[in-house]
């Protein structure tokens, strides 16, 4: 890993980072990745996890769906709107997109 990789990740994550912090994150990442790398040693089955194959075992996870129909919710519209950083006539206002 190098500084360019950190910059690329910060860009993907939409976080601005200062020069010092980039260096710090690079060194932290190296020590954390060094630690987590130990899982390479574990042998695991090649099968796919949860989703689409026929080799599921009893611990496999399943998706839980609900019917797609409207239900009564107690969200407060006023509270939601009052927290918009910028708004106009009850609508959220954002910078020009195109």
């Amino acid at each position, binding site marked *: 890993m190098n500084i360019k990789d950190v910059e690329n990740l910060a860009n993907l994550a939409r976080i601005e980072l200062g020069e010092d912090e980039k260096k710090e994150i690079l060194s932290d990442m190296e020590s954390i990745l060094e630690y987590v790398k*130990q*899982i390479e040693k574990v042998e695991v089955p090649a099968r796919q996890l949860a989703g689409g194959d026929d080799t599921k075992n009893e611990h496999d996870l399943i998706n*839980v769906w609900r019917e797609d129909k409207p239900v009564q919710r107690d*969200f407060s519209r006023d509270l939601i709107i009052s927290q918009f950083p910028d708004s106009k006539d009850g609508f959220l206002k954002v910078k020009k997109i195109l």
Partner: protein
Amino acid sequence: MIDLKNLTIEEAHESLKRGEFTCRELANAYLKVIKEKNPEINAYIEVYDDVLDQADEMQKKFVSKTDTILTGIPFAIKDNILIKERIVSAGSKILENYKASYDATIIKNLKKAGAIFLGRTNMDEFAMGSSTQTSAFGVTKNPIDTTRVPGGSSGGSAAALAGDMTLAALGTDTCGSVREPSAFCGLVGLKPTYGAVSRQGIIAMGNSLDQVSPFGKCARDVEIIFDFLSNYDEEDSTSVSDELRDSRLKNQNSNSKKIGVPWHLFKEGIDTEVQENFKESLDKLKKAGYEILDIELPHAKYSLAVYYIIMPAEVSTNLSRFDGIRYGYSAEGENLMDIYKKSRHNGFGKEVRRRIILGTYVLSHGYYDAYYIKALKVREKIKTEIMETFKKVDYILTPTVPITAFKLGEKLDDPVSMYLCDIFSAPANLSGVPAIALPSGVSKDGLKFSIQFMASHGREDLLFEVGKKFETIM
């Protein structure tokens, strides 16, 4: 004068019922201690200004005989649990002024039962930390020794309870965030079975790991809170169904006395004093008639490594919603991208930024299979191994934390050493089984020791049973 130090939920309930004191008097007693101690301890980020009004309202339930065991019981609530129209900030600047637009399911239920909310407690920012030092609202100190950390991330709730600033407290546990502060503050802390308690309305860190978790001064208090909170919630798609809850309880052993100890996990890397205390605790359990067995959990040693891949992956996904556009802190910027980047830079603290970047890395093209998918598969192995072990033993016993409460300021510059505090916590979160931290004595410096029991899915009842027993033989 109410003896807050020794007060339990049941005793408070009886006293309220008999009219020995009122809800207002009880709440007021805690407010007084908060006023005196909180400026130094910083357990609460905010103490609500309507506590006495809440108390008067709940007093009516005793008049109308609609009271429950939690009516009038004061609670401290971790700052990542939504209470409608109140600020909930997850210890972060990005949500500093955020007001919840709905109640978490557990809050809705606690309100119905008549619980009183004293305030919201300090925490590591977005629950990322083991010492409550990464909060945007300052560090919390351990009431037992104010030069030391209370543990984390739910350190505010733990400190509030240990400092007699509340009678009950809620935290969340993603990898020891309730058990570790319980250990450092001399409390009982339960991480329930994954899916036992609703996560609806909890600010998520790692969705596949998070559980709302009660603190108590004794096992019975934790049991009362857990029994109340543990319900199926259709608003949480990972909530355990009533059917599964019943079937798990039906597999009961008549005589649950077998304790497995995975000695190989703590041959090294653990304080001598902690090791000694663990052995003493084991002797006490043996004398009380428990059978102690050596067990092997060959994959458990990878738990923390697996956790530090899965958790940041979930963090980077979860926290993408904080973009400075719809709510929370919003920075000035030239264009949308500029607003995102600046809001997230200024709004998040250092540890949060670090974990988002790490999560982005393990999920990025080229590393996804090697890190994330591999970690999921190892997680399955750990889970299978633990489930198999519970066919042979009723409990798995380890120390809760390898060390005792450390000094404020320590470990902040060395993330891996901070992460290692949670080495014994990770297996329960990864496999979804419940685990309880129990006080097991005091060091020569007056610091608290703690041991941790795990049981199989849905068997919190066994943890309370052994917890209550252990209190009598301590």
